[in-house]
C-alpha cells in the first residue's frame, strides 16, 4: 500500500543517518513507487521526484544530522505546493449565482448537486437544483427524489433542451427571489465532440459563478487527460472529488490540480446527503502519502 511504501522510504532514510547519493536514489525510488500506486500521474510523479531530488542533493540536506526529516519535509512541501488550499464557492450576495457541475459518466454529479444544495441550506442559503441531464433514463427523477427527501428546491418544469431550460429556470429564480442554482449536467466524455460542444454552448450563453469538475477519486492515470480536456472547453473554477470513502488513495486529485491549476473545493465521503466535506490539503496528502 502507499502508506507502507512511504513508511518504508522513511524508515530507510532514518536508518541511514548521513545520506549518500545512493541512499537518496534508493529512498526516492520508494517514494516514486508509492505515488504511482496512489494513482498520481506518471508525468507528475517524475516532476515531483525531480524537484525533491534537486533539493535533497543540496549541501544542507547531505550535511544535516536529520536528512530523513529534511527529505520528508521537502516531499511534503512539494505536495502542499501543488495542492494549494481549499477555496470556497464563489457565491456573491444579491447576484444570480449559477453553479454548474460537469464530469464523466457516473462520477457523482447528481448526488453531489443535492449535497451542495443541502450544504448551502445549512448555511442559510437557498439553492435551486436544476436537472440538466436530458439523456440518462430517470436522471431528472433522481434529482427530484433527492430534493424531496431532503427538503431542497428543484426546478421541475424542464423542457428537453439545455438553453431554453436554463432561461426558464433563471426567470423562475428571479420571480421567486432565489439567488443560487446548481445545474446537474449529463455525464460526458472529454473526447465526445458533440457533448463538449453542447457544454461550451451553454457556457458561452450564461454567466456562471462556479463550474466544478466532479470526479470519482478511484480514477487512475487517465485523470490527467480528462481534467485537461474539460478545462480546455470551459473555464473550471474548481473540482470536487467523490467516493473518498472508498480505499482509493486519490492521486487523481493531484493530477487535476497540477494540470488545471484549479482548487479542489469539496470531497464526497459517502452516499448520504451530509457526506460532503470541505477540502483539506493535509488530509488528502496524508491519504496519498500516508
Amino acid at each position, binding site marked *: 500500500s502507499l502508506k507502507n511504501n512511504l513508511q518504508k522510504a522513511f524508515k530507510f532514510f532514518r536508518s541511514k543517518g548521513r545520506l549518500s547519493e545512493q541512499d537518496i536514489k534508493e529512498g526516492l525510488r520508494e517514494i516514486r*513507487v508509492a505515488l*504511482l*500506486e*496512489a*494513482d498520481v*500521474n*506518471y508525468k507528475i510523479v517524475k516532476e515531483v521526484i525531480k524537484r525533491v531530488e534537486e533539493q535533497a542533493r543540496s549541501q544542507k540536506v547531505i550535511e544535516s544530522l536529520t536528512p530523513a526529516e529534511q527529505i520528508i519535509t521537502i516531499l511534503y512541501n512539494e505536495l502542499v505546493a501543488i495542492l494549494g488550499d481549499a477555496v470556497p464557492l464563489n457565491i456573491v450576495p444579491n447576484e444570480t449565482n449559477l453553479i454548474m457541475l460537469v464530469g*464523466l*459518466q*457516473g*462520477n*457523482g454529479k447528481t448526488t453531489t448537486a443535492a449535497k451542495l444544495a443541502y450544504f448551502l441550506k445549512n448555511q442559510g442559503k437557498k439553492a435551486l437544483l436544476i436537472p440538466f441531464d436530458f*439523456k*440518462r*433514463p*430517470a436522471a431528472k*427523477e*433522481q434529482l*427530484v*427524489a*433527492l430534493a424531496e*427527501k431532503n427538503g431542497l428546491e428543484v426546478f421541475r418544469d424542464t423542457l428537453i433542451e439545455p438553453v431554453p431550460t436554463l432561461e426558464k429556470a433563471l426567470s423562475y429564480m428571479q420571480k421567486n427571489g432565489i439567488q443560487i442554482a446548481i445545474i446537474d449536467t449529463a455525464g460526458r*466524455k*472529454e*473526447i465526445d465532440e458533440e457533448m463538449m460542444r453542447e457544454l461550451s454552448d451553454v457556457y458561452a450563453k450564461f454567466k456562471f459563478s462556479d463550474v466544478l469538475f466532479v470526479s*470519482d477519486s*478511484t*480514477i*487512475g*492515470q*487517465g*485523470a490527467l*487527460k*480528462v481534467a485537461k*480536456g474539460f478545462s480546455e472547453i470551459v473555464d473550471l473554477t474548481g473540482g470536487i472529488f467523490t*467516493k473518498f*470513502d*472508498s*480505499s*482509493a*488513495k486519490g*492521486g*487523481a486529485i493531484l493530477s487535476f490540480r497540477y494540470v488545471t491549476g484549479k482548487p479542489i473545493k469539496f470531497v464526497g465521503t459517502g*452516499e448520504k446527503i451530509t457526506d460532503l466535506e470541505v477540502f483539506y490539503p493535509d488530509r488528502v496528502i496524508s491519504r496519498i502519502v500516508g
Partner: protein
Amino acid sequence: RKILKRKTDSTIDDIEEFLIENNFGVEFTEHFLEELKENRVKDPVGFLRKKIEDILDSVDTSLSLDGRPIVFLFVGTNGSGKTTSIAKVAYFFRNQGKKVLLIAGDTFRAAAIEQLTKWADKLNVPIVKQQLGSDPASVVFDGLESALKKKVDVVLIDSAGRVETKKNLMNELSKLQRVIEKKIGRSANEVLLVLDAYTGQNAVEQVEVFTQAVNVTGIVLTKLDGSSSGGIIVPIIERYKIPVKFIGVGEGIGDLKLFDKEFYINQLM
C-alpha cells in the same frame, strides 16, 4: 492515451511510461521490465503484446448459459455502469429470441428502480420490483419466484452500487448470493463485477473485496469508449484469473460487446 511505437523505436522508458499510464501498475511494470532484461528481448513491444495476449487467453470468456432460467447477478462499485449494462445484456439476449426478466435489486439509491424500469419499458421486458427501501433479498426472491413461474429464459439482477470499504454492504451481497442459490437450487450462472475502465489501482482492491463477498465469475468492463484503455484488467486477470465477459462501449442499448481479445488489444496498443 499513451501509444507505443513499433519494435525497436520504443525504449525501456517508453514501455514503462506506457504500462504505468495505462494503469498496469508498478508491480506488473517492474516485473515485465525485469523479464525484458532477462530475456534480452529485441522486440519489446511485440513481447509485451504477446504477454498480454497470453494473459487474456489464460481465462475462458464464454458465458455460462446452462439451466433455466439463466441467472446473472450484477455487482460493483457506485456509478460503474451496472444498471446500463443490464439493459444492454437484456437487449443482447432478447435479440436471440430469449425471454428476459429484470430484477430491480437496487432498493436503495434515489430513482434506481425508475431508471431500470425505463430500460425495461424501452426493451419491452418484464421487471420485478418493490418500493424503495425494501429488502433487496426479498425483491430477488420474489423476482426469481416470478421467473420460475413464467418459465423465463434469462434473469438479470441489479444491485446497489457499494464501495469495498463497507463491510455490511459486502455482507448484504453475500446474502443476495445465498438467496439466489436457495431459490434456484444452484449458483447463479454469472456473478458479474462491473468495472469502470477509467479506474486506477483501486480496481484491484475492488476485485479483492468483492470476490471475498461473492463468487465473481466475470467482469463487465465499461466505458471503454472513453479515453481510458482499461489496462488495469491485465494485472487483474493475471492475478485473479477472472475473465472479462462483456465490454461496454457507450451509453446506448447496443453498446455492448462480448469480450473480444483483438478489439481490446488494438484499442490498448
